[in-house]
């Protein structure tokens, strides 16, 4: 397998959408190719940073204004 072909499957590999044969081919390539291995590993870590971390906090004044607006516009009929 060539690097370009391996990289094309990067996203599908990380999402575990590939059949076993292609997955093994990619893993065999990654064992030999340090550059592709780095790209795969750091892409996986990129995704983990975003899906694991609460990168944005809801500031309390924003939350307070949201609830005040909702009560004002939606809460009166309850």
């Amino acid at each position, binding site marked *: 397998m060539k690097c370009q072909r391996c990289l094309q499957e990067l996203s599908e590999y990380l999402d575990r959408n590939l059949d076993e044969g292609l997955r093994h081919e990619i893993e065999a390539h990654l064992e030999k190719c340090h550059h592709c291995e780095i790209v795969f590993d750091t892409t996986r870590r990129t995704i983990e940073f975003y899906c694991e971390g609460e990168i944005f906090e809801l500031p309390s004044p*924003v939350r307070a204004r949201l609830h005040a607006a909702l009560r004002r516009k939606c809460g009166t009929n309850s």
Partner: protein
Amino acid sequence: MGRPREIILKLMTETSPKVAERDESALVAEAKAGSYEAFEALVNRYEQKIYRLGLNITGNAEDAEDVLQEAFLKAFKKLPDFREDSRFYTWLVRIAVNEGLMKLRKRRSDKSVPMDDAVNDEGEVTPREFADWKPNPEQQLGQTELRAILQQAIASLPPILRVVFSLRDVEGLSTEETAATLDLTVPAVKARLFRARLRLREELSKTFKRETMS
């Protein structure tokens, strides 16, 4: 002396544990039947995620707050029409995405924000950075610094890429749910996600790569 305004707002916005524990479909049913308390419990559950989504789409705190408020106001109004053939959260995300995209279009009134065009003009995605990363860069950075780096990186993506990335990898929607939310095909979502992931990796590599010995 406390801060009475904040305390009052806290009391106004907190829901009883009993409500918070209730099953989501029960909350949706109660909210549809007119219970504001049930609706507020749903707001409490998802407000953080919707704000984050608004920030990711618009890249701007002021617009994100508008998206947050408008999304929940619209959700409240449209709730009687929610047929429960999808998760409440997915339905809410769709409303928030539409609000976010409208904000972007208004800000870029000279240009539309296309969601369904070809991705060929979105720039080169061939990896250029092959240096390995430091083992745990997050441990060497403060939480605030790390957040700033992640926010800056996602803001550097074109809107069509950051919306897809936000829905799939940050909010955890499936490829199919993302496609339905954005009126894209599944292959189009996959192509954008691939580009978004690679471009973010390149951005983060600038900060996280190991220093090479000179």
